[in-house]
C-alpha cells in the first residue's frame, strides 16, 4: 500500500510543479497517472521511485515513511520511457544486472531470467544485444528486467510511447495481464487517456501539478469533476460550449437557445455545457429536435463521426453507430437527452443541478 500525503515538489522553493497530492494506492492495484505533458505526473512517479527528492509532504509505503530512503531500498522496480537498457550487455545480462547486488544465487538468477524471458517471449534473444532488437522486443526486455526483481511495486513511465499503434495495443494487454498474474501494485504514467481508460483499476487525472480527479475509469468518464477532466478523457473529446443563462434557458452565441427542465441559482451567469459525442442522436418522431448543418463526416466502419455547426463559430461532433449515409451539407434533426448534459461554472468546476426528465430542447433564436 502506498500513501501520498500532501506531496509537493518545487525546484526553486516558490512555484510548485507538483502540489498537494493526496492519494492511497492499494496493494495489487493498477493505478494510472494521466495528464498532458508537463502536468507533473512523471515528477510524481520519480518522487515515488526516489529519483527526485520530495519537497513537502510525506510518502509512505506499507506504513513506513519513505521520503529519505534511497531508491534501492524502496523495494520497487521501474520501467523507463526509453527503456534504459545497457547497450553493451546482452539481453540476459540486462535482465539479471540488478540481481547481482541482491545476494541471489547464480542458479536462482538464471531461473528467474528464464521464467521472465519465457513469459515475454524473449527466450530466443537472450544472447542478442539491445540494438539487434525491435522496439517491441526492447520494451519486453525492460519489462523482464522489472519482473525478475520480484518487487511488490512496479513503476512505469510512459513505457509504450515509443511503439507504433498496433504494438501499443498488444503491449497494453500484455502489461495488464502480467500485472494481474503477478499481483504487483502498478503505478503507470501516461499522457494517453486511452491507455489510462483501458488499463487502470483507478486513474488519477493531473493538470498543472494538481490532482484534478481520482476514480475508476468509467466513473471519471461519466462524472468528470471539471472541464479539464471532461475534455481530457474521451476521444473524440467532449463537446463544450459557453452559454449565457437566461432564467431557465441557455443561449449559445445568440443563435440557439436551449430550454432546461430546471433553474440555475440566480447568481449563475456564464456556464459551459458539455455533451459526449455519443449522446447526440438522430431525433425520432416525437423528440424535440434541432436541425444542424453537417460540416464533415468521418466513416470509421463501426461508427461514424459527424461534425456539425452548433453555432456559426462552434463545431460539435456526434458519434453514431454503424455506417450512416449522412453527407456533408445535409440538414439533420438531432436531439440530446438532458440527463447526459453536463454543466460547468465559470471556474470550470462541475455544476450539479437537479436533472429533470424533460428533453432538452434547442431551437433557433430569433433576435
Amino acid at each position, binding site marked *: 500500500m502506498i500513501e501520498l500525503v500532501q506531496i509537493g515538489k518545487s525546484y526553486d522553493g516558490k512555484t510548485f510543479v507538483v502540489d498537494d497530492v493526496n492519494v492511497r494506492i492499494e496493494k495489487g492495484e493498477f493505478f494510472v497517472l494521466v495528464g498532458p505533458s508537463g502536468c507533473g505526473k512523471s515528477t510524481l512517479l520519480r518522487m515515488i521511485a526516489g529519483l527526485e527528492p520530495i519537497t513537502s509532504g510525506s510518502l509512505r509505503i506499507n506504513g513506513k515513511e519513505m521520503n529519505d530512503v534511497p531508491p534501492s531500498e524502496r523495494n520497487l*522496480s*521501474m520501467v*523507463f520511457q526509453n527503456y*534504459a537498457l545497457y547497450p553493451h550487455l546482452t539481453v540476459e545480462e540486462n535482465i539479471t*544486472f*540488478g540481481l*547481482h*547486488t*541482491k545476494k541471489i544465487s547464480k542458479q536462482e538468477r538464471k531461473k528467474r531470467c528464464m521464467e521472465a524471458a519465457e513469459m515475454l517471449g524473449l527466450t530466443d534473444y537472450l544472447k542478442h544485444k539491445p540494438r539487434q532488437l525491435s522496439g517491441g522486443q526492447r520494451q519486453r526486455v525492460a519489462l523482464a*528486467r522489472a519482473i525478475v526483481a520480484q518487487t511488490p511495486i512496479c513503476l512505469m513511465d510512459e513505457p509504450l510511447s515509443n511503439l507504433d499503434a498496433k504494438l501499443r495495443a498488444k503491449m497494453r494487454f500484455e502489461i495488464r495481464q502480467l500485472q494481474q498474474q503477478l499481483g504487483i501494485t502498478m503505478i503507470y504514467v501516461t499522457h494517453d487517456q486511452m491507455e489510462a481508460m483501458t488499463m487502470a483499476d483507478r486513474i488519477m487525472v493531473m493538470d498543472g501539478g494538481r490532482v484534478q480527479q481520482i476514480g475508476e475509469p468509467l466513473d471519471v468518464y461519466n462524472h468528470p469533476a471539471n472541464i479539464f477532466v471532461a475534455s481530457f478523457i474521451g476521444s473524440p473529446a467532449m463537446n463544450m460550449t459557453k452559454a449565457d443563462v437566461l432564467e431557465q434557458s441557455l443561449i449559445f452565441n445568440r443563435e440557439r437557445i436551449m430550454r432546461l427542465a430546471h433553474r440555475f441559482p440566480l447568481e449563475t451567469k456564464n456556464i459551459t455545457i458539455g455533451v459526449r459525442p455519443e449522446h447526440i442522436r438522430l431525433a425520432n418522431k416525437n423528440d424535440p429536435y434541432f436541425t444542424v448543418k453537417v460540416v464533415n463526416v468521418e466513416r470509421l466502419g463501426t461508427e461514424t463521426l459527424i461534425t456539425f455547426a452548433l453555432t456559426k463559430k462552434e463545431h460539435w461532433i456526434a458519434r453514431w453507430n454503424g455506417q450512416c449515409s449522412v453527407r456533408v451539407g445535409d440538414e439533420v434533426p438531432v436531439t440530446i437527452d438532458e440527463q447526459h448534459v453536463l454543466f460547468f461554472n465559470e471556474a470550470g468546476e462541475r455544476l450539479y443541478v437537479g436533472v429533470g426528465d424533460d428533453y432538452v430542447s434547442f431551437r433557433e433564436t430569433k433576435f
Partner: protein
Amino acid sequence: MSIFRSMVTYILLVIGAVIVMFPIGYAFIISFLSGAQLLQGVLWPDEWSLQNYVTAFEKVPLLRYLWNSFIVSFIVMIGQLLVSSLAAYAFVFLRFWGRDVLFFMTIATMLIPWEATVIPNFLTIQKFGWTNSYLGLTVPFFALAFGIFLLRQHFKTIPFELYEAAQVSGVRHFRFFWYVVLPLSKTSLATLGVYSFLTTWNMYLWPLLVTNDEKVRTVQIGLKQMQTQEMATEWGVVMAAVVIVIMPTLLLLFIGQKQLQKGLMQGAIK
C-alpha cells in the same frame, strides 16, 4: 568531387606529409651514417651499418632507460585513467553541494602553466623522500584536469536513465561505474590512455629534476646524456638512440589510430 580536385587535395596532403615526416626521416638516415660521413655532408649511406645502434646501447644503459620510461609512462597512464574516470563519474553522476563550482575550479587549473608548479611539487616530493623513485616520477601526474574534462564530457553522453535504472534496481556505484560507465566510454578512455602515455614518455624537465640515478632515469634524459658526455657529439649514435626512443610512440599511434577511428565512427552513428 572531380578528379582534378581530388588530385590537388592529394598533392597538398603529400607535400604536407613530406614536410612533417622530414625530420624523422632525416634522423633515421643519420642513424646509419658514421661521424666522418656526417661531417662530409653525405645524405645517403653507402652501407646500412647497425654500428651506431650497437654503440648507443653500449654507451648508456639504454635498455634500462627504456624500461624505466615504459614503467613510468604505464603507471602514469593507469593512474590518470583511474583518477580522471573516478572524478568524472562524481562530476556527472553524483549530486552534491558545490559540484559545478568544484568542476570549474578543476578546469581552471588548466590555466596554470605546469612550469609554475614545478618548484612546489619538487619540494613536496623531496620532503616525502620520493626523489630517485618511481613514486616521485609518477604520482604528481595522476590528477589531470584535461583527463577529467574529457571523460566528463563523454560520461555526460551516457543516458542518465541508465544510472537511474541502476539506482532503482539497487546496483551500487562501483558496479555501475565498472560494468556500465567504463565499457561505454572505451573510446575516450583509449584516447586519454594514449595521450597520457605519450606525454609521460616525452617528459624531460621533471625526470631531470627528481632523478640523478640511472636506476630510475627515463630515456629522454639518457638521450641528453649522450649529447653532453663528450666534447664532440656523435650525432649518428644519438640519432640511432632517438629512432629507438620514438619507436614506441609510432607503434602506439599506428595501433591506436585504427582503434580510435573505429570508436569515433561508432559514436557518430548511434
